[in-house]
């Protein structure tokens, strides 16, 4: 069998990305009777539980810049970010009519309130606000979260009409451990040789992970890693940056491409964190829900939606990301009206300043069309790093 090249793999991922009718998820569902699809929004849900219930977890991250929002704008004032309105558009336009359930994770007040709107607008769809602990003690936040996970497991069991067993959960943890390992491998490869794996390609591969069954996504990642390593790509004189603040409403693909065109290799980011939220392998023996709960408490990404109990640690995850990825600066790209990203930003910037790391900031919306200002800003930032860093 011939190994697919990167262009073929990226073309497949790109087709999945552009398909706002979620044809692949529809096909998965219709391939066998009784299959169900559970949508989820950023930042994180334990997809292992959905998978163990025999269902397809489907990441919904808004409509992007290709979706014309007609109905969704009627539900939101101009000063609210764009992801909920395009998500409503996906719903009312029938693009999610095959989705059996929706999970709204604890990320901000807008997504939180959207959970209630979904209940009213789509009363026949199972929908749940998925709360996570802000207390990280095993016997407090851990117990609470394990119980929340059990409630989710039981609700999905009811939806499918059969219990979700621990054995199935353990098998799902194995599948997602494998997937996260591959995602980390890809991210590490990009750190080592960013010219080999352009940011837009990495992004499309991660997006594919939102719609494909995890086993297929892992296969896609394996193929891509092998294909990327097999061909040398030209190396540019780019600086290395971490992109932060892009964890919920997605930047347009053109924005990601523009950063590299402007002279910045993206060597780390907080895009689509669900694909690597848990930073260590989840144990596969013992109580699977307890294992998922403890992984969340002690081995998960830091982001604005999580409380940082240690004042000295605030922003250090970003400093560490810069050091680990050998980045020369940080680009804060935040969606307009995004409370978590924008409220967090000054604190992260203070941490970077103390560490002597340069940064630049701008805002976007998922449907931003004009990339020239962003390209100019990123280009100037790249130039300033090249000209003056280390002086």
């Amino acid at each position, binding site marked *: 069998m011939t190994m697919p090249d990167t262009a073929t793999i990226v073309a497949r991922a790109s087709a999945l990305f552009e398909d706002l009718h979620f044809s692949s998820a529809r096909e998965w569902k219709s391939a066998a009777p009784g299959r169900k699809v559970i949508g989820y929004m950023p930042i994180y849900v334990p997809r292992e539980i959905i998978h163990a219930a025999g269902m397809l977890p489907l990441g919904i991250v808004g409509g992007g810049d290709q979706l014309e929002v007609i109905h969704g704008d009627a539900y939101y004032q101009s000063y*609210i970010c764009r992801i909920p309105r395009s998500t409503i558009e996906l719903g009312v336009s029938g693009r999610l009519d095959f989705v059996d359930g929706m999970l709204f994770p604890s990320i901000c007040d807008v997504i939180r309130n959207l959970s209630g709107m979904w209940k009213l607008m789509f009363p026949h769809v199972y929908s749940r606000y998925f709360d996570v602990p802000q207390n990280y003690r095993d016997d407090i936040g851990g117990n609470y979260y394990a119980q929340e996970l059990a409630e989710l497991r039981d609700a999905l069991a009811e939806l499918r009409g059969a219990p979700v067993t621990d054995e199935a959960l353990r098998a799902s943890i194995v599948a997602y451990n494998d997937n996260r390992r591959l995602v980390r491998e890809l991210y590490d490869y990009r750190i080592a040789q960013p010219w080999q794996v352009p940011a837009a390609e990495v992004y499309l591969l991660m997006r594919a992970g939102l719609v494909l069954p995890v086993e297929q996504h892992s296969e896609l990642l394996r193929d891509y890693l092998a294909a990327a390593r097999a061909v040398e790509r030209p190396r540019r004189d780019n600086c290395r940056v971490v992109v932060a603040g892009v964890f919920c409403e997605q930047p347009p693909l053109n924005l990601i491409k523009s950063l590299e065109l402007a002279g910045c290799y993206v060597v780390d980011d907080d895009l689509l964190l669900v694909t690597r939220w848990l930073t260590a392998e989840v144990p596969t023996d013992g109580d699977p829900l307890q294992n998922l709960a403890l992984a969340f408490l002690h081995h998960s990404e830091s982001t604005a939606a999580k409380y940082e109990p240690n004042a000295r640690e605030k922003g250090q995850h970003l400093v560490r990301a810069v050091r680990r990825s050998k980045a020369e600066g940080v680009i804060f790209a935040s969606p307009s009206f995004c409370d978590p990203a924008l409220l967090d930003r000054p604190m992260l910037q203070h941490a970077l300043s103390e560490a002597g790391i340069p940064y630049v900031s701008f805002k976007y919306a998922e449907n931003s069309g004009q990339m020239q200002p962003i390209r100019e800003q990123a280009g100037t930032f790249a130039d300033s790093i090249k000209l003056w860093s280390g002086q």
Partner: protein
Amino acid sequence: MNTNVATMKGKAADVEKDASMRKQKEMMAAHYDRLTAVPQTGEKVCSTFVPGNLNELIGCFDLVNNLPEVNAIQNGLRRTSGQYVLEAEKLGHSEDVCTYVKSDIGMIAKGNIAPNGKPFPNPDVLLLSYTGCFTFMKWFELLREQYQCETIMLHTPYMGDGKVTPNMIQYMVKQLREEVIPKLERVSGVKFDIDRLRERLARSAQAEENLVHVLQSARRRPSPIDAYFGGIYYIGPIFGAFRGTEDAIQYYRFLREEIDARVAAGAGPITPEGDMGPEKYRLVVEGPPNYTNFRQFWKMFYDEGAVVVASSYTKVGGVYDLGFRHDPQRPLETLAEYCLGVYTNRSLPMRIEMLSNYVEEYGADGLLINSIKSCNSFSAGQLLMMREVEKRTGKPAAFVESDLVDPRYFSAANIKNRLESYFQMVEQRRASARSAA
């Protein structure tokens, strides 16, 4: 205490206030004096939030409560918040985020001066009761960076499914017992005494009973109170620093007598320009008010004979009218239930049901939403709420927009125009109903 219906002249010659409003103002002033005297008295300060505040618990440790939201409101009313917001934006805070936060940050940058003209003391502890608003968490992370003091998180799960589960209560009680109380003991140097907490909770329940009596007096015609603009005065002590104190009991007893006297006299609400005059429109209002132009905003209502008979904003510090009372027999559980039940911690369907019931129970002509630009906790979903309440009650709803304490987003002409159109719509509905009958 004067409980006459006749209004007393306020300090400013053109402002009329009920005696209770004057008393409330005195209580707030006394609290600010206590707070700013901390360097002399040696008391310790706990900054915390209005929704989900644990005032009874804070009092058990002899801590003085400081509420940054209330400070921002005071700065809005005094027209100083605008410069503070700009100062915060100059420091790198986004123009898109909560203006309470920016008013607070800007105030700190400009000397941290309290409404009494004296400097605020730095807090000894930040009690982050994370209830109903995501921004709270970021706000206190920002303040922690500023003050570098002990910060205690109390995480309140959200009532996404419209119910409180045993898991939520256990989680909160365990946080209270094993995190919040030991840390408050450490900061204050005062040992926790659960009987002292019970006493305070019992006092809270007494005050809550009278507050509910006052709020529900608006079911009468004419309503003796304005439950939004006036209501903000009424909730001040119980949402602020006084819940669980004798002062609160006295205030709400006094307020109840005052309102009962207005009822007996068949009087409507008091406004800054005296008695409102004939009641023409009865409204339910959703959302916080604008504070930079508070009186101007209120005037747009009472000039038209519109009285607010119920509001959601007066429930952000506790939804007592739906039956909740602090229960001294279950001290920690009751604090958990209180935090879980505040308005902004309720799901959208719960909020819609509450507003629809208000329209019916208070005989309102409809719903008005004041949507706040920088408050997603309230604003996200309000357009759906408006439609749902209209659908369920058959009463018209309207939508105006402003901001909490950023004067740049108060457009008087725009709001007045929309209000006038709304009142015309109410008249048309009435005319249609009359002709149909």
